[in-house]
């Protein structure tokens, strides 16, 4: 079974937010509350005159050893058979322990107001019917249909590459094994499946 992962090349990201928009359309994330499963953060660093501006695409890292899963009291956060970290909306308490535990800020509350707005916007086709903690699913429904996640498929500069991390021939595995692509906060031992080139 393929161990899918993603490599994000920050050198070519232009910060157009097409990934955010595609994700929001695909997964009905509450853009009206400025909550996103993936977002390109615009970071300023340094002190004048040595300042810099960086564009950092964010997303759930689908960790091998996810901190969010360990703290979830109801096991609503779980890993599916492909190793993706998902949330069972039926058993989520909304206690936010996972939000506090996630070092990558990848989660948010899909709250009552968002549910009401989602019903108003999407009508009967609204995907989110219950309050829950929401996060990236790596577009499981698209993966099942043999497609890339919406964010990767729409990126105009192909900054997001998806592939099998266990296949030495894949571009993703090559970038990781060469050391070009690195995970964030390796020191925490979470084992992210998302790697960054910077």
């Amino acid at each position, binding site marked *: 079974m393929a161990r899918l992962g993603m490599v994000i090349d*920050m050198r070519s990201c232009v910060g157009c937010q097409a990934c955010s928009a595609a994700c929001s359309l695909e997964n009905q994330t509450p853009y009206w509350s400025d909550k996103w499963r993936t977002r390109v*953060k615009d*970071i*300023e*660093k*340094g*002190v004048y005159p040595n300042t*810099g501006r*960086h564009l*950092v695409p*964010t997303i759930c890292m689908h960790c091998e050893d996810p*901190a969010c899963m*360990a*703290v*979830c*009291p*109801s*096991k*609503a956060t779980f890993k599916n058979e492909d190793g993706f970290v998902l949330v069972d909306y039926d*058993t*989520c*308490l*909304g*206690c*936010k*322990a996972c*939000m*506090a*535990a*996630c*070092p*990558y*800020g990848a989660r948010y*509350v899909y*709250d009552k107001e968002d549910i009401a707005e989602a019903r108003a916007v999407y009508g009967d086709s609204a995907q989110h019917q*219950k*309050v*829950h*903690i929401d996060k990236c699913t790596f577009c499981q429904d698209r993966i099942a249909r043999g497609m890339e996640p919406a964010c990767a498929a729409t990126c105009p500069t192909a900054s997001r590459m998806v592939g099998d991390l266990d296949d030495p021939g894949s571009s993703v595995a090559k970038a990781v094994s060469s050391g070009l692509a*690195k995970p*964030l*906060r390796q020191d*925490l031992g979470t084992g992210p499946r998302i790697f*960054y080139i*910077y």
Partner: protein
Amino acid sequence: MAKPMHLERQEAYEWPVAVYLFLGGFGGALITLAFVLHFFKASASMTGPAVLSGLILFALAGAALVFFDLERPVNAIYSLNNAKTSGISWDVILIALNFVSGILFVLPEYGSIEALNGLAGALAPYQALFGAIAAIAGLLFPIISGGLLAAPASIPLWHTPALPLLFLVTSFALGLAYLGSLFTLSGTVYASFTGGILALSLLTAGISLAYLEHTHNGPVEAKEGAHRMLKTPRFIALYFIIGLAFPLALSAYLLFTGTVLTWAMPALAVSLFLGGFAVRNCVILNGVQTYPWPY
């Protein structure tokens, strides 16, 4: 050195978390202290009021947890699913255990009430057992509650074993002062309570210093969180002055001069209550994390 520009306050927990962690820890400490008093036969008359107070605090903590903080209160039923690794699961188990065993422990104290007479008689031989279970659960609750906050490695202000210890010691200092107040109201003043409060306040001071040391030498997020905390006048006034310096000074004065003041225990209880809540609230509100940008 310039501060990183991406330090942000955590958004998961707000003040209600401090309320129920505080009330739960206080309730647990009260039930444990009641059992100790009962076991050493210090004062049987105080077992009932102490345990009932603890149970009421647990009920408030449980209610706060379910109705004010959870996004889906009805789903609290699922909170026992992950006791292996989740601090919240453990807290819910301890609250339930404490509640049931606390009631079974205290019922024999009310055998004089006709309606409870039969039940109290049947439970009396097992009172010590139920009391011990409730006491252990009460002892563990503040530790696990501190552990719940100490779990996220990404929030270094919380990620330290000093926090569960601080929660434990402040809970027991407050429990002791509250019991001392009950005794004072019933006309008895125990010097040993003052000694206990002094010892626990000294421990609190020591752990607070260790905690500040952790933040001073720790990651930049811990430093920033502590910096924000120490810049909060409410924290300085309620925790360091009212919740720590005042109990230390008053209990030392009472103990070493042999002075008996009827208002001392209630005053200590109020100051430790304010300080205990302030430290939890400020620690939670100032939990700072950094987005893990590679730059």
